[in-house]
């Protein structure tokens, strides 16, 4: 394995810059800090924001094509790098109004965020189980910290500990699986493993078991039933910006790796896994759909909603066609905008006391028509109501799936669950518009938050009306998986 530095930079340019940015943030914190709380936080946040936006912009200059021993920069990787960078920027936006509630470590939060993003970008380029595992651990370990970020709140500590234990379990499955895969194929590289897999009629039991273990490890990230079990507790306990980041970023990590695994590594052999994936998808949809109904806590509710979205992503994964891969990329982007808007609204309505009970949004339409409109848009998009982007995302997934005769039952079931999910999203709308407010305090919306909300809402709306640019970007991104 010979490694060439310039080639490495060609592949991992984004990651290098993110690493640099992280170091700069640490140094800035030290230099500006001198023990004060707010000064360095503002400086670090501003710097992190500027840096992330700059790297995001720079990523559009990059041309896909570089490939090396540790990673690849195909159009798929590039799509997800941009996605993760955008997620990080949005998370910073969600974190900004939340910052006042942190008694310590305000400046470190953006720094940690940058490092997680680095891990996520690394994962989107992974073409090797070593890179995959290193990146995954980088992401997970930093997320542990971010989940337990408010040590004075027992709930946050609880969330952190649960996350660590479950994360350790998932990592254990992962390593176990990787070991089996290496043992049966003799390689860590995706391309070679794929060659071995597709050279034989049926997989040897060891390889099958190894792949299953890896799948399980990734199932935790995606939040597929029965590996979703950590989601409600951790989502509820973790600070809201972390939850937002978990719900979009961490889920997308599962998506990006599962897509690599299923579409590239397994390739045509994945057809044997259709039943397993479809079964998981159905279970996940069921659990997400029914679990959300009795929730009274906003973040827990969004956790279950996220599980049901994971179900839809699994439907697309089970379909295993180029169209379904494009649909997944479209889906995650629409999910990003709708979800970030929802979490930012939660941050604003929970105000200073971190009460995220659903009562908080009662009568929101009278207290702040703008927030009500944003949350309505977001909920309707998540529910998949036209003309919002979420509708088109679900439509693309189901349209791809219906082409597969073996999956028609799953499509029918997904539709059923989509209707069920409409019920609980509409319950939220009922609270917004038809209930009297419980909390009547002043809702403070900073200019930045307003801008981010507006942007998310417009994106959800615009991609619902005029989908072509995003559809094309998603198709271009997915195409490199099938080369």
């Amino acid at each position: 394995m010979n490694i060439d530095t310039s080639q490495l930079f060609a592949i991992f340019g984004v990651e290098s810059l993110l690493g640099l940015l992280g170091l700069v943030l640490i140094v800035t914190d030290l230099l500006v800090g001198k023990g004060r709380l707010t000064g360095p936080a503002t400086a670090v946040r501003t710097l992190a924001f500027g840096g992330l936006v700059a790297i995001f912009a720079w990523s559009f200059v990059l041309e896909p094509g570089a490939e090396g021993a540790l990673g690849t920069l195909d159009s798929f990787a590039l799509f997800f790098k941009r996605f993760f960078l955008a997620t990080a920027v949005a998370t910073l936006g969600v974190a900004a109004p939340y910052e006042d509630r942190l008694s310590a470590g305000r400046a470190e939060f953006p720094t940690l965020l940058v490092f997680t993003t680095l891990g996520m970008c690394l994962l989107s380029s992974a073409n090797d189980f070593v890179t995959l595992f290193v990146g995954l651990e980088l992401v997970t370990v930093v997320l542990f910290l971010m989940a337990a970020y408010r040590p004075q709140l027992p709930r946050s500590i609880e969330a952190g500990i649960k996350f660590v234990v479950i994360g350790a379990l998932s990592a254990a499955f992962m390593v176990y699986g990787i070991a089996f895969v290496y043992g049966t194929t003799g390689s860590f590289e995706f391309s070679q493993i794929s060659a071995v897999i597709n050279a034989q009629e049926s997989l040897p039991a060891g390889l099958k078991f190894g792949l299953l273990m890896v799948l399980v490890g990734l199932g935790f990230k995606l939040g597929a039933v029965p590996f979703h079990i950590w989601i409600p507790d951790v989502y509820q306990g973790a600070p809201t910006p972390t939850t937002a980041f978990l719900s979009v970023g961490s889920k997308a990590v599962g998506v990006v790796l599962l897509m690599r695994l299923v579409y590239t590594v397994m390739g045509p052999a994945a057809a044997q896994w259709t039943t397993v994936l479809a079964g998981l998808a159905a279970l996940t949809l069921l659990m997400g759909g029914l679990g959300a109904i009795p929730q009274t806590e906003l973040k827990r509710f969004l956790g279950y909603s996220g599980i049901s979205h994971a179900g839809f992503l699994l439907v697309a994964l089970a379909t295993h066609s180029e169209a379904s891969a494009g649909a997944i990329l479209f889906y995650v982007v629409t999910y990003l905008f709708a979800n970030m808007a929802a979490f930012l609204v939660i941050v604003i309505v929970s105000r200073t006391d971190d009460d995220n009970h659903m009562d908080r949004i009662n009568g929101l339409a009278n207290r702040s028509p703008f927030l009500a409109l944003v949350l309505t848009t977001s909920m309707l998009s998540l529910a998949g109501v036209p003309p919002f982007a979420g509708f088109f995302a679900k439509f693309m997934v189901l349209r791809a799936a219906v082409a597969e005769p073996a999956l028609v039952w799953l499509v029918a079931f997904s539709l059923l669950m989509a209707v069920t999910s409409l019920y609980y999203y509409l319950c939220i709308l009922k609270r917004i518009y038809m209930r009297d407010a419980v909390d009547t305090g002043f809702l403070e919306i900073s200019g930045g938050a307003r801008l981010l909300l507006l942007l998310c809402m417009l994106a959800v709306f615009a991609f619902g009306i005029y989908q072509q640019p995003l559809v094309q970007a998603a198709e271009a991104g997915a195409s490199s998986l099938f080369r």
Partner: protein
Amino acid sequence: MDMLPFDVNTLTALCWALFVIPFACAFTLINFGRKLPRGGDWLATAGIASCAVIAITLFFKVIVGFGAPEWAWSSAAYGLSWDWISLESLQLPVGFYLDNLSVIMLTMVTIVATCIFFFSQGYMHGDRDYPRFFAYLSYFCFAMLGLVVVDNLLFLFIFWELVGVGSYLLIGFYYDQEEPPKASLKAFMVNRVGDVLFLLGIIIAWQLVGTLNYTEMFAVLESGAFADRTGWALAGWDTQTLLTLSGILIFCGAISKSAQVPLHTWLPDAMAGPTPVSALIHAATMVAAGVFMVGRMYPYFTPDALLFITGIGALTALIGATMGLVMWDIKKVLAYSTMSQLGYMMLGLGVGGYVAGLFHLITHAFFKACLFLGSGSVIHSVHSQDMRDMGALKNKMPWTYRTFLVATLALAGVPCFAGYYSKDQIVANALSWGLSHGVAYYVPFVFAVVGAFMTTFYMFRLVFLTFHGTPGDQHKYEHAHESPAVMVLPLVVLAIFGIGAGGTIHPLAEHGNLWFNRLVPEPASAAVAGLEHVGADTSVHGESYETYLEHFEHNLHVAHYPALIVSILAIVLGILLARRMYLTKATDPAAVARKFGPLYGIVCNKYHFDDMYGRKGVVGGLMFMNRAFAWFDKNVVDGIVNFMGLAQRFIAFVTGLFDKYVIDGLVNFWRFFVRALSSILRLVQTGNVRDYLTWTLLGVLILAITLA
């Protein structure tokens, strides 16, 4: 190679500019109007004026530059169209389409609109919602111009709906008064009826032709290569029937939008809006959009569909004119006059006078806008709409009077004025249609002539009552005054067009030599041509299409002078009668009304159309149906739904029990009083990490077993 006045990208940019500028103005005014000096009226006026500059530039570059009747430009031909929706089986590209007709239309709309924007600055001065008014006007212009420049039927429909919204907003502009909100709602609802039918027509057209782009549609029709979508959706119908059906349905959109019988009832009520709105939307542009649409889709209509159009047009022309005879409200007279004139246009189009109908659309827009603005000027001065309060105003308001008179002469079709050239052509076409087909087909001609007589009569009645004779209300008369220059100048400009839009003042000019006839040639009927390919009966009322066309051309020539003489006679008769009844008072109008007793009553009650739609008519029937449906909903559908709900809850409950006993070890206690489903799920989520791990391991185990 097309002849282009500019390079392709400039042309495209101009098309964009035409409707984006008014939209930007509307957006700015609705948000920041109150913060701008003068409420931002200068911004809206500058916006529409710049559109007018673009349109006039195009007009001169295209019309004067090329003078070619066949000129047309489609952005799609240069690859400049955008996919609105693009799926494998569903492509909906949208682009721009310009030809002589749309350039002329754009020029007319922007010039009239600019005049009206200026006029509004005077008319609406001091209104509480001054910026909102200009925002709505700009918004309307955005939709109207968009409607003209797009290249396909679907986007025409979308903009069609958007102008409808503009009309709704502007009719109900005085939302705190009693009438306007009702009128706006009525306009919206009545238009819904036509629009739904229009959409149905579009859907059939899409099934049948497979595209909604104008040029592509006509090409498909002409080649006879119909899409076979009809195979499953419309099986058992032959192509000609379908074409006729969809043509009639598409025309139904125009019935409501252009206030044709029987969906005309909203137009008179729409006069509740501010007068400049009546001038812009309900006289010059939006109501004419229906005529423009029929013109655009002209090759699509089969002879049977055209027959339908003729019938509706002729009825509207006559019924509108009769109702104009008896109204006392100055704006209502003009509204019924507009309705009648729109009927003339449809009639013209229907009898094969494509050029005549559209020409009348253009000339009518100018002088009818002038009439409405003139009535606005009078209302502004007298503060009443009732003609009995007016009289003798010609001394007080000389400029309003002069321009009003010019426009009246143009509307009546007095030789040398613009209306004469277009209306005369319609009458000639109607006569030639009768000559070509036989006795029964003279009806439209007779209606047109009688209508022309009535038009002259009610217009001169209006002029005499308002401007001549003695003041109806001395107090109001004394306070009457000429309007400010910002209102009078637009009147003058429009009056000049009222004379000049005909392009000549030679009373005996050959129709073929008029500017409009030279520039807008009649398209061949693609519908008929296409039917030849599919072998359907292509005869037009017993003749082959070619022979029919030849006969028609010949008859048109024959009909010119007889038609001219008859219409001039009708006009003279109308003026003389109006003079006798309202100026010299030799005959008492009330006596005449008594003589026609029952008939007069029917006309005064607007032929009971409103009653027919009202509580005891269509609406009442609908409400009965609603109640019936509500009952059905409540008792049957809800019953099914509730049963399904119960069934689902039962299934969920059973699933819950299953869960409980399978994962018994995870469950520590059972909360009996919580709903079965939620409690199960909550109990799974124990919060105990060890339970979670057990769960997960179990899942892995099951997965491994499944795979093995």
